[in-house]
């Protein structure tokens, strides 16, 4: 990007990238073959490039990523979580190329404009989370996974494209440690029920109690922190939430 286009794609007043230059198709087909690099294994992902401030001697990163925002969209949740958990590394996964580029620029701009070194703990990768989660995270590496306002895929024959399903939960249970938490929310009632039902019938997850939900500071961000959540709130839409814990399990 030359400096001239750079000037216009970034807002003069805030220094942040302007969303309208990163518009993309509304939906991506998660089934089609990919055209982006896929790490061979988690050991092949160079997270030091994502979190340069967390790099220690020998170019080694001092921490592992613990939170993953799946289908992070424009990145609103990551930005809220960044300051709430400043010592935790988090990554967004997004399928759409332009949206990923936007989030990258947004985070870099926030890092530049932050006076006290904030936003160094969040980053984003372009990938198809439905196929490549095991390529990014080791067994039990994550303590939180987020699925906020995922694409609904209404038609029955497209249900297998939904990001929550019994089979995909097997993989999420693999990357989540026992005690880790999976957060889901949607404004589509049918999808909300689907996600809840999948989690309820999965033997490696259990629902959080009301008290646990009340005392978790992350829960209230689910409907307010992301762009999609804000849109739903503006239109006065209802939301449907399912928050479950990964439990220890013996087959």
């Amino acid at each position, binding site marked *: 990007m030359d400096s001239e286009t750079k000037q216009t794609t970034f807002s003069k007043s805030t220094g942040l990238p302007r969303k309208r230059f990163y518009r993309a198709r509304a939906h991506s087909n998660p089934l089609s073959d990919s055209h982006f690099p896929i790490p061979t294994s988690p050991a092949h992902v160079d997270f030091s490039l994502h979190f340069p401030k967390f790099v220690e001697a020998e170019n080694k990163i001092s921490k592992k990523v613990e939170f993953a925002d799946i289908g992070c969209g424009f990145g609103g949740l990551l930005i809220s979580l960044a300051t709430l958990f400043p010592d935790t590394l988090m990554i967004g996964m997004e399928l759409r190329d332009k949206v990923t580029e936007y989030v990258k620029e947004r985070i870099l701009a926030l890092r530049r404009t932050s006076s006290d070194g904030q936003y160094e703990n969040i980053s984003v990768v372009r990938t198809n989370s439905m196929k490549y989660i*095991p390529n990014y995270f080791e067994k039990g590496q994550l303590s939180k996974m987020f699925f906020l306002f995922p694409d609904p895929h209404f038609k029955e024959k497209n249900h297998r494209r939904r990001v929550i399903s*019994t089979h995909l939960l097997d993989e999420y249970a693999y990357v989540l440690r026992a005690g880790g938490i999976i957060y889901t929310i949607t404004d589509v009632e049918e999808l909300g029920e689907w996600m809840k039902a999948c989690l309820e019938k999965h033997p490696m997850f259990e629902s959080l109690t009301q008290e646990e939900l009340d005392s978790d500071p992350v829960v209230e961000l689910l409907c307010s922190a992301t762009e999609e959540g804000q849109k739903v709130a503006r239109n006065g839409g209802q939301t449907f939430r399912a928050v479950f814990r990964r439990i220890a399990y013996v087959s």
Partner: protein
Amino acid sequence: MEESLIEDAEIQNKLEVAPALISVHPSQKSVVVAVGSDLRVFDLLENCPVTLVDESDGPSRKDSIRAIRYGASGKLFVSAGDDKLVKIWSAESWHCLNTICSEKRVSAVAISRDDSYVCYADKFGVVWVVELDGIMEGKVLPSKKGAQLLSHYCSIITSLEFSPNGQYILSADRDFKIRVTVFPKKPLEGAHEIQSFCLGHTEFITCTAFVSSPELSQGYLMSGSGDSTVRLWDIKSGSLLDTCEVSILAGHGESNESESLAQVTVTDICTIPNYAFAAVAIQSFQGIFLLSCDLAAHTLSITKVIKIPGESFIPTSISVSASTRLLWMVSGASNLPGSNHPGFSRVRVISCIESSSILEDEHIPGGTKLLEQLQGKVPIEESVMSAAAEAVRAAMSSLLMKKQYSEEKREFRKRTRNDKKATQ
């Protein structure tokens, strides 16, 4: 646009060419060859061809068989493929004991160590499980439907394997990945606990097999891939123990064409329980590689390259008998495009552990009688053999290799996508 259509039609055509497959009974009581939809069995104890008895009144097989195997005990045999039927046979009476209807084409099968479950993978990456209660008494069971066991999201599963003690089921796919899953006590409720992923291959995985020794009965996993390597894994942790490059050697001595140094695909691996040894077949290579595995040092190395002189014999499938340690190989394909040849197969045998000598046809167990049954009576010309090997190679790459579409073609594919069509 028309060009793309033609190309798609070509791909379609290639897809239909299936490699000939071979499987030998663990104690060499019988041998099976599958060519296209044809399943040919020879009984080595009685020294006679076997006529299969299939009383299921389902549709008769027309599409290619893609996966065959004996259970570890040698009592059961399974075959499955493009006709979406999984057939479970008694490997003694050769009666079809059960036919399972799959919703999709089947790409891989496995039988649990205790013969109580059959698992099969469909073209959408879903692995299904069927319980075989009562089948061992030789009962013909009413047609069954599989329950979903696990899934690789929209990938083609190329190999399914139970670990030697039956604790895990392994599934390898086109997306370079091997998943190790705990085989649960109640498999019909799904296998949710993933033990590990074995990640390291950089191309589609084609085949897997366990190597073990008397000291290390759990063994390690070997896998072959389109990335010209055979790799050794510890399945508990998913760690890669060693990588053995086969490309350079496969090209070596053949010719000096630069092409021979290009990536080659490992097409099949077979091992013998308690022998730290494997035989490996490689695409376009006229012969077999023998690998030895040092289970204590965690290393794989090539000990011998056996070339098959004369005719262009490129094995499409190999199988080894644990009792006789003879390596059975088949080369062949189902219907060849542009030929009215019904599909053919050529069978050869190597005594690979003791002497690595290629047996003359008359010295093969079962002799010419066996060859007549497994190869059919058609004379096999060398040109047909090479054409078949090439067709199998082309079919495999178009099925498993990641397609690199040009921007234009991608747009075209988007416009003609099936799911879009349905909404119009």
